[in-house]
């Protein structure tokens, strides 16, 4: 089951990467990042069978941090939306230059 799990995890991760690179909506990009988190979680759980319970414990931590990050990130998106009235990535280029 290990090889399949790792393969599935890799595929999901790459799908998430493609989504980040392709989409233009900031929220959807965020969601793709969440997908990448999930894929990594799968890897940890799959390997915990061979390396001990630390894998599953780490999954808990990942979820926690993902939650914190989602909260902060969404707050940022909200404040950007308040300024620019859009979440299109093309218009978020304040760092230009």
């Amino acid at each position, binding site marked *: 089951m290990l090889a399949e799990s790792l393969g599935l995890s890799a595929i999901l991760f790459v799908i998430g990467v493609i989504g980040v*690179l392709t989409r233009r909506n900031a929220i959807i990009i965020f969601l793709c990042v969440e997908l990448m988190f999930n894929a990594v979680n799968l890897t940890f759980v799959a390997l915990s069978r061979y390396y001990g319970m630390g894998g599953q414990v780490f999954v808990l931590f990942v979820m926690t941090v993902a939650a914190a990050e989602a909260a902060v990130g969404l707050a940022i998106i909200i404040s950007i939306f308040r300024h620019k009235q859009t979440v299109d*990535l*093309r218009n*978020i*280029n304040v760092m*230009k*230059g």
Partner: protein
Amino acid sequence: MAVSGVHPLAATIAAWMWLLPVFPLLGFIINGAFSIISHAHIGPADPDMGHGSHDDSSGGESHAAGDHEDSHVVGKPRFASIVTVLGPGVIFLSFLLAVGMFFAMRGVDMSTPFVQQYWSWMPVGDLKLDFAFQLDQLSMVMVLIVTGVSTLIHIFSIGYMGDDEGYARFFSYLNLFVFFMLLLVLANNYALLYVGWEGVSLCSYLLVGFWFKDKINADAGKKAFLVNRIGDVGLLTGIFLLFANLGSLDFTTLAASTGSLQVGGALVTTICLFLFFGCTGKSAQLPLYVWLPDAMAGPTPVSALIHAATMVTAGVYLVVRSSFLFSMAPIASITVAVVGAITALFAATIAIKQWDIKKVLAYSTVSQLGYMFIGVGVGAYSAGIFHLATHAFFKGLLFLGAGSVIYTMHAAYHHSGNHADAQDMRNMGGLRKAMPVTWIMMWIATLAISGVPPFAGFFSKDSILNAAFEHSNDSILSGATWLGISGHTVLLGVYVLGLAAALLTAVYMTRLMLYTFHGPSRTTETEQKAMSEAPWTMTGPIVVLGVLSLVGGWLNLPAIAAFIGPSGGLDKWLNPVVGSATIAMTNGTAVEASRGTELGLIGIAVVIAIAGIVIALLALKPATLVTKDQSPGEHGFEKVLAEKYYVDEIYEDGIVHPAFMTAKNVLWRGLDVGIIDNLFVNGSAAVARGFAWVGAQIQTGSTGVYAWGIALGAIVVLSVFSFR
């Protein structure tokens, strides 16, 4: 170097031989300084700047007249008196020193040359070149000719260039020329000789294009320099081959090491042919003679000095200096003789139909140089030098005489306001009444060049043609095959061509005298009243050269004419230098033709000379000539001759134009602009811009690009790990 111990000449005046070129060099510097100073004061509206802009087809000869009635600024240029003394003076000092050295040499055993080394010039690896002078009999002869004739011509220039604004510049260039020429003849190795060779090319350019404000003159100067340059490639290649195979460039070392070369082998022949190619450029033989007629655009003293007496003879000098090589390469020697013979005849045919006095003399020079090359080609090296000496006398005289004629014609034209061509023979005629001294002297020169005894040219030309005939039977050349023909036949052909050229020489020279000095005058009355003999500074040297043309032949009398004086003077004098080469050429046996053969050959030569003069006198009618403007054009073969066989046009279309087009389109547009400018310069700028564009993507502020950057970075890092 074969000097053991100290050379006996070192204790004599010859130890000062380094002063020989230093005097003219000082003259160049001082006169040049005067020239620069005097020009530094010319203001914005100086009317003198417009001189020299004549539109003669033969190339602007300056006014050089003493009497202006128009509003030109009159008077001598600044510092004229100092330059007048200094210019010829330094050359005269060199001449005196040379005479002293000559007498010193006579009292001393001169079986080896006297070499003075001044400094070590290029010690590079195996190549050890020194700046050193070599004084032996050959260079003594050349030094005497160069300094002697130069002195006379410098004195002539005082009168001729007296009113030219570039007076000081002229003398400085002349002095520089003498300096380089002395370097050439005194050099003890090929490299220093090459320095002198190039230097005289440079001075030729400067002097031929002296009145450079006329484009024709500037172009003539350029042509002289460039065509010489082409020949110099051959000379350089020969020098390279010499060094590569024999390891040295000293004359004495090379002469001793020729044992390692195979007689008649490919290497020697190649070297000699390359050296000779350089000579065709410098000494105006086929195919590189085309610069000499155009060089008549320079002032007449320049033509007399450079193109009659000294520079063009450098090629002959080179061959004689390299006689130890040429005597080992029969094919190369035969080539030299053949080229000389063909050139002699070719140029003589063109000279018959030229109307400009100086052009006739120019082609005559080419033709006579051909004779010299016949001489050194068949192995008669001292005969070639002999003709070189006598040619310096009578050709120098002819040019100076022509200069006097042109000077007088210009004076006449200024008097009458005529703007016709002062050098065209059709505008002259009957000048003997106005210029008797010049007339007589030029007749002496004409007889000398035609080969009438007892004038100078007879002996020298005769010894060359006799050598050609005799060597066709009894030398290493006669046994060799040249392009499939036996050497014997080739040399006989050379002899016949030489005779034909002698006939034509007599014809065109007599023609020149007839049209210029005899017959009815084609100038107007007012002009004839203004004509007179040139000033003594100009006729003096002419007289001196006339005397030399008369007695110069007695330098090297053949044995038959021993009743006149000691025979074979020059032969004996040059024997230590060229003797071994001459012996090698004649298979070890001294060629002694029977009295009958010699008398027969002499008789043939005299008959030909007189026949030529008589033919010209009978066939040419100066009375039927009209002035140049009224003359009808030429037709048929005469037109071909008058247009010099269209050689210049052929060169222009066949060689110069394609080369120019290649340079312009391929090399300039293709390589220079296309590749170097566009590809390298602009291309590197474009590459830099590209890199900058790549770098600028980091600063776009667009989050999407940054996301891409992260992803790419991750991929790169992972790839490093996955391929470890």
